[in-house]
């Protein structure tokens, strides 16, 4: 070790402060809190959807909400884990969840190709734009929590961290607004809810790396 490095080490030792280790469980609890907060805000602001209120949730609520929830969960787990870097860690499970959830927009695309204009109308574009905007807004809450967690840690791949944060946030926003949105058509869910996740992913990939580099 050179004299300079020895001096640097002495300087670093001198400024050592106790550091509470970032635990995965704590990050997961924070993320769960963010999702509950997003759902709470959505329900308080816009009211719960009628079938849920009646205690008889529609199958599409369970199916689509469940797929987006699983994708968001897989991306959140991978993102939270990225704060504790280590060589050899490989969390690619989110890719399978993404492939499964992509069946929703792919189904909508297939229907749109077959039915054309009527499929567009079935997506209820007026309500769809509202769904998209509110889902992205709710997703921002979730994204803020994940980004603050990543900034405390040391994500070794900021680009991947950004992409996963964006998908997780998009899914969280969509899941939260699914408790409000009363529309059960595959065209609406595949197009507008799928678009919220896609835009979230793009925004995350573009913006988050700049916020979490260290």
């Amino acid at each position, binding site marked *: *070790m050179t004299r*300079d490095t020895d001096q*640097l*080490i002495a300087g670093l030792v001198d400024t*050592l402060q106790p550091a509470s*280790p970032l635990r995965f469980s704590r990050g997961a609890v924070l993320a769960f809190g963010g999702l509950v907060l997003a759902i709470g805000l959505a329900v308080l602001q816009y009211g719960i959807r009628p079938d849920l209120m009646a205690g008889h949730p529609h199958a599409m609520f369970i199916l689509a909400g469940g797929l987006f929830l699983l994708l968001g969960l897989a991306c959140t787990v991978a993102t939270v884990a990225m704060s504790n870097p280590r060589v050899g860690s490989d969390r690619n499970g989110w890719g399978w969840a993404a492939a499964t959830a992509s069946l929703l927009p792919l189904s909508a695309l297939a229907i749109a190709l077959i039915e054309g204009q009527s499929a567009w109308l079935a997506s209820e574009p007026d309500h769809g734009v509202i769904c998209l905007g509110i889902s992205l807004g709710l997703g921002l809450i979730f994204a803020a929590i994940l980004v603050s967690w990543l900034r405390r*840690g040391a994500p*070794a791949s900021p680009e991947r961290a950004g992409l996963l944060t964006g998908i997780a946030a998009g899914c969280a926003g969509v899941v939260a607004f699914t408790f409000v949105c009363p529309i059960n058509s595959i065209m609406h869910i595949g197009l507008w809810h799928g678009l919220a996740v896609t835009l979230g992913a793009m925004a995350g990939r573009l913006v988050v790396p700049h916020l979490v580099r260290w």
Partner: protein
Amino acid sequence: MRAEDATLARLMASSQKGDKRAYAMLLEEAGKWLKSYYRRRVAPDHLEDVVQEALISLHRKLASYDPERPFLPWLAAIARYRWVDHLRKLSRVKETAIDTDFAGAPEEPAIAAKLSLETLFAKLPDAQASVIELVKVQGFSIADASQASGQSESLVKVNIHRGLKKLAAMIERE
């Protein structure tokens, strides 16, 4: 966990609790490990700089180590990240050299940035502001900044590290 890793993991766990003796031993060992890691990856004249940057990263990201996991895979991830960053910096240096060849480029943004930096520098201790100005604004090497400021090279790095941290916090607050 291998014996060496288990020892380092124990030292790291103690360091996270604020044990300076354990931390000094850990940094000494980590420094040796990093030197051997980078020896085959960076040019000899950059070796010491990259090792020191990785040690500073270790210091800044102490909390990101989970004491229930092995230490060396964590250190290797830090080392790899700094290596990639080093390569990016090298490529940016080349780009900057090409940019400055364009004579007559508008200077207003640079002047505005400098004024803004000077406002921020005024809030920093002189020792930190002067070396940040020399290295990050005027493009001096650490060695040249050390000579110009009368600070040792390691002190220049520590002051830049602390000063930039303060600057980042200031910018975030503004």
